[in-house]
């Protein structure tokens, strides 16, 4: 009989995700989906001995209970939260065996951080759609029936992988969590001097931005800000100087929609008619998955493309078995 798990409590938004998600579909209007925090997601997969493309769970905030119908190696990583197997507290960033019939409970996170990832040996075996098992909430597709999980859902698991040995992700290799996040970003595509003033760019990169309550996988809304703008109107594209003729957006773009900057998340709109003043570096993108709506603050740190790529290489090096130690 196929291995599976049953969802007893789904929490506010728990989805099946894989990394790097659904690529090659941007020109058809699909953002990649995938884990909002790819670091913790990849770490959880690594801990349970899964290959990188294996699907796991993204838990928003917590309040989730899963029952395993087969033995499995599991690891929980990401936001600070109480996790327990059959009532016994387990540490995050560590893998362990659970027996058939065991229940994994993830409590509501008090932070820091907002999303918790569950890696399960063998991965979640939902049918791939366009090369990925990731749930794309805006398109209501992929993952498990294109939606967040709820009580009663039964997820098939892939064949066992790894040797089941408990391992720990070295504390020194884990990223620091905070209520104030400095996120690396490059300037542009639409910045100073043609769209915003240099002073606007200094403000964008200099100040702290509060995370709005209406933030989710489609985007992180920040605070309204009256930029000076280098132009008085958007001309033929619209009255507001943030308007441009519609173009495709990069994931992680800091999209300025009127006066409101929004960081485009993995489920965001693929195109639109607003400028993107900066773009979050791939190596810093995981942090947007850990931003807690209401309370957390963000500051963008400007980096060059070369610096962004170097940071990405460091991050990849941390996501290898060299970062694992025995428990």
């Amino acid at each position: 009989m196929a291995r599976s798990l049953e969802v007893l409590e789904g929490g506010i938004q728990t989805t099946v995700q894989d990394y790097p998600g659904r690529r090659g579909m941007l020109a058809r209007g699909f953002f990649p989906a995938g884990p909002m925090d790819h670091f913790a997601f990849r770490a959880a997969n690594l801990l349970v001995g899964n290959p990188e493309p294996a699907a796991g769970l993204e838990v928003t905030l917590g309040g989730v209970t899963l029952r395993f119908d087969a033995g499995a190696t599991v690891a929980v990583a990401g936001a600070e939260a109480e996790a327990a197997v059959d009532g016994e507290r387990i540490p995050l960033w560590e893998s362990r065996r659970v027996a058939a019939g065991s229940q994994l409970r993830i409590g509501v996170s008090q932070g820091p951080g907002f999303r918790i990832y569950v890696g399960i040996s063998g991965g979640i075996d939902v049918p791939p759609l366009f090369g990925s098992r990731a749930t794309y909430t805006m398109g209501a597709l992929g993952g498990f029936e294109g939606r967040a999980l709820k009580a009663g859902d039964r997820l098939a698991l892939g064949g066992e992988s790894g040797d089941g040995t408990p391992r720990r992700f070295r504390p020194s290799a884990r990223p620091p969590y905070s209520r104030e996040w400095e996120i690396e970003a490059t300037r542009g595509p639409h910045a100073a001097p043609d769209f915003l003033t240099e002073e606007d760019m200094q403000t964008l990169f200099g100040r702290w931005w509060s995370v709005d309550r209406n933030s989710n996988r489609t985007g992180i809304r920040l605070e309204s800000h009256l930029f000076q703008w280098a132009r008085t109107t958007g001309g033929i594209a619209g009255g507001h100087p943030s308007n441009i003729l519609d173009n495709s957006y990069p994931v992680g773009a800091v999209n300025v929609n009127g006066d409101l900057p929004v960081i485009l998340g993995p489920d965001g709109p693929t195109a639109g008619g607003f400028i993107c003043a900066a773009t979050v570096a791939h190596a810093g993108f995981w942090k947007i998955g850990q931003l807690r709506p209401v309370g957390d603050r963000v500051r963008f740190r400007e980096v060059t493309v070369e610096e962004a790529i170097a940071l990405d290489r460091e991050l990849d090096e941390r996501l290898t078995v060299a970062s694992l130690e025995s428990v």
Partner: protein
Amino acid sequence: MTTQAIIETVAGSGGKPAITYRLAGDRCLLVEYGEMEFDLTLNFFVLAVDDALRGRPADGIIETAPGFRSILVSYDPFVLATGDLLEHLHAVHEGLGAEQEMAIPSRTVHLPVAFDDSQTRAAVARYVHSIRADAPNAEGGTNVDYIVRYNGLADREELYESILQTEQWTAFIGFFPGLPFMFPLDPRDAVFVPKYNPTRTWTPEGALGLGGPCFAIYPVESAGGYQLVGRTLPIYDVQARNAIFRENPLLLRAGDRVKFHRVGEEELLALFEDVHADRYRYRIEEGVFEVGEYLEWLPQVKDEADERRRRRDEAAAVTPVP
């Protein structure tokens, strides 16, 4: 450390538009063509470049996504350095002929449309009831009369005729899976309207909307901001209930020309059922769009298009904005 968003510009020459290369993070480059003008010729150039890029793939290019006058190129910087990507793009641009000589693969897709149908009226009614009762664009329970008024048209029939007469150019797909951004190829049929303010929370599948100068078809039930003129058939189905969606859940692609024909609402609803029961066959003709022929034709209709535009500008100036 501070950098510049624009990493290179190339002046236009030989009938080709200027090119601006913009950083879009460490994994994307945004390539823009010409100036920010509402000029479909720029989109023809975009689609010709996109086609040429597919014909000359480079290791490390993950995907390309056209916009109205731009292409977003996603790449893997560990496989393809930014400088090498620029070199590759230069070579592709240099290998292209002038705009006048371009021929773009372009299908003609025929779709029925029922104007001011009860489903789009229901979306407007829901908006008036639950979001904004005094929206000037929803007077009379429809957006159609507002579009007529804003463009200085004589009546609804004049609007419908303009939508039916022209072919709509699919400039690109985006925002949402399968959503086409379409523009009338005949400038005499250009219409313009401001978007909803605030946006609507529900739109029926297949609704045909107008926002600014752009027509869009809603692929699924969703929120939306475009003024609604009617409803056509499904253009997206991941369940592939109709054969047309089996290989690709999207009906339309950039470069398609959409030609609408008018049907009554009852007929449209019957066709909707036929699509889902796999009895309906979408009418699609393969073809090529000759940019030169189109550019030669444009001057013949210029005076008439300009006159209509004047009429529209006069009407728009005295029409309230939502």
